[in-house]
């Protein structure tokens, strides 16, 4: 079943990672930016699982790490969304470009 070589998976994850980064850089909508960050985190998850499965099957560190990442990501999202809502309350918008009062 391991006919898919590791490199392919790594390609996928890396691609995913940079797609996420691209999204973060380009999207103006905070929610979308948050989603792209999730994308990056998931690519990391893929990395971990893949490494664990292909290279170091003897123990499950990678898998555990993935699980923790997922949980943390959830927490992060929760706080982030709370903040975004609050931002919307004060700025009447969730466009990142509108929240640039603090600068220089």
């Amino acid at each position, binding site marked *: 079943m391991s006919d898919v070589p590791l490199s392919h998976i790594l390609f996928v994850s890396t691609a995913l990672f940079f797609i996420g980064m691209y999204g*973060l*850089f*380009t999207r103006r909508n905070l929610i979308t*930016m948050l989603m792209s960050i999730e994308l990056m985190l998931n690519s990391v998850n893929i990395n971990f699982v893949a490494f664990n499965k292909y290279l170091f099957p003897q123990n499950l560190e990678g898998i555990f790490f993935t699980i923790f990442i997922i949980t943390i990501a959830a927490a992060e999202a929760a706080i982030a969304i709370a903040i975004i809502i609050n931002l919307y309350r004060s700025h009447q918008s969730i466009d*990142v*470009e509108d929240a*640039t*009062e603090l*600068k220089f």
Partner: protein
Amino acid sequence: MPNYAYILLIPLQPLATFIVLGLFGRKYFKTFSGTIGTVSLLISTIVSFVAAIQYFFVDGKVNGIYQKIIAFKYTWLEFSPNVSIDMGIIVDPISVMMLVVVTFVSLMVHVFSLGYMKGEDRFATYYAFLSLFTFSMLGLILSSNIFQVYIFWELVGVSSFLLIGYYFEKPSAVAASKKAFIVTRFADLGFLIGILLLGFYGGTLDIGILIERLTAVQSPEYTAMAAAGFLGVSALTWALTLVFIGGAGKSAMFPLHIWLPDAMEGPTPVSALIHAATMVVAGVYLVARLFPVFNMDAAALQVVTYTGAFSALLAAVIACTQTDIKRVLAYSTMSQIGYMMFALGVSKYGGEDGLGYMASMFHLFTHAFFKSLLFLGAGAVIHMVHSNDMKDMGGLRKLMPVTHIAFLIACLAIAGIPPFAGFFSKEEILLAAFHSNKLIYGVALFTAALTAFYMFRLYFSIFWSKESTVQSHGEGPLSMKLPLVILAACAVGVGFIPFSSLVTSDGEALETHMDITFSIAPVGLTLIATLLASYLYKKENDKPAKLAASFDGFYQAAHKKFYVDEVYLFITKKIVFPLVGQPIAWVDKYIVDGFMNLLASITAKISALIKGLQSGKVQNYALYFFSGIAALAVLFIYLWK
């Protein structure tokens, strides 16, 4: 070895007076301060006379030669083991002679001032300064160490500065005092560098040792100094010339003479003391002090000779055209000092050739008396007329007989009419010049004639010419008359002192023979000049004006002192200040300081420039973040290897 330590008293007396009067004079004894000063100086005068007698007639001589005695010596500041400033007292013919002159004249001036300066606001200060001057002058003449000479040299300069600027509310006085100080300071620079040279090559600052080393032709110091050179002139010549420049500054030799006439802004007694009898001859004294060394270097002596002769002539010419009596006297002083200088210049060391040296010292001695007498007389006149200008005077002989007689004697003395003091000394000088250098002799002769002329011009226009207009208020108190009388007596008498057997270059008695044939020429010329003067000025008339008009341009030039002052003004005001000072100030303000400010502003600029980094857009932050990583990655994975 005879003991002369008590000579220390002589300078210390005035010093003590200075300190006392300087600190407490103004407050506590405003009016007695004069008496205090005079009394204390009287003591030092007596002591110095004692010293003189002891030296010259009791135990100064050892088998026919007057010894150089170091009466006292204390290491004051040690630069390096053998080079140090010692405060010492040297006792030898010239120092003792000067001791007498300075204390005596100073005493006369002190006494005269009692009357002359009466009721002055800063009476105490005046006497404090006088004492300071006397102290420094005495220190100067007693110095056994060339650096000690320099120290007192400066002190003399500053006390003259203080006294010239005594009437500090008169701008002209302030200007004159500044001029005097700065010009002499400039000369002292030469002196200082000369000292540095002598000290370095001689390996000592002690005059005695210095002379010893530099007069022995085979001594390492001498050879080194003669060999070493700069701009093709030997170090010895440099050193001596520089030292002479210092002396020229103090003694108002051309071209450093410009301060002397202005210095007449000071109180007249001060002029009598400082700018006639004592300080101005310090230059001559300095050269005499180092004469053995000068003797080793013909070039330096040449410089001395010609500077002296030229100054003598120039001053005499200018003196004929001045109308301010004190300025006339000032120029005559300059001319007489010129005499002394070239007398030294034409002299040699020791024996018969040492005549010039002896003559110069002799003239210094006599000149001190009659010149101070002239000044004090002028002071008395001014005290009466309240003006310095001849035009306001005339016919004073009836109002002030004593002064008149004294002044006449002085004039005769300075003109060199026998048997007055000036005659003898001048005679010796002419003789010395005649034997060594005919050109100089000619100049001297002509100058002698001029001297007689302008002195009697002065005399007649003060005491004769038109009828006096001023209403008399008495000739002044005894304190003013007494010094005149005493000095007049001296002016008559001192010529008869057997000077040549006392003060000579090598301390050995010198046989001088007076031959009438030689005296004919100078005396004759002098008499002619005198008669001319009386013819022109005895009665008020327009002949002088005609005469002046007849050689007009020259007269104008002489009247304007040959524009030397203007040259100096041009150099300072037009060159030093605008072409050196201002540019430097500008550079400091705009370049050096500007650079510092530039650094600051550059920093500020940069910080304003890069503020765009902090754009406030979180996405840019993320972008920079990642580019940072990328840069590091590229650097370390690909480039670092």
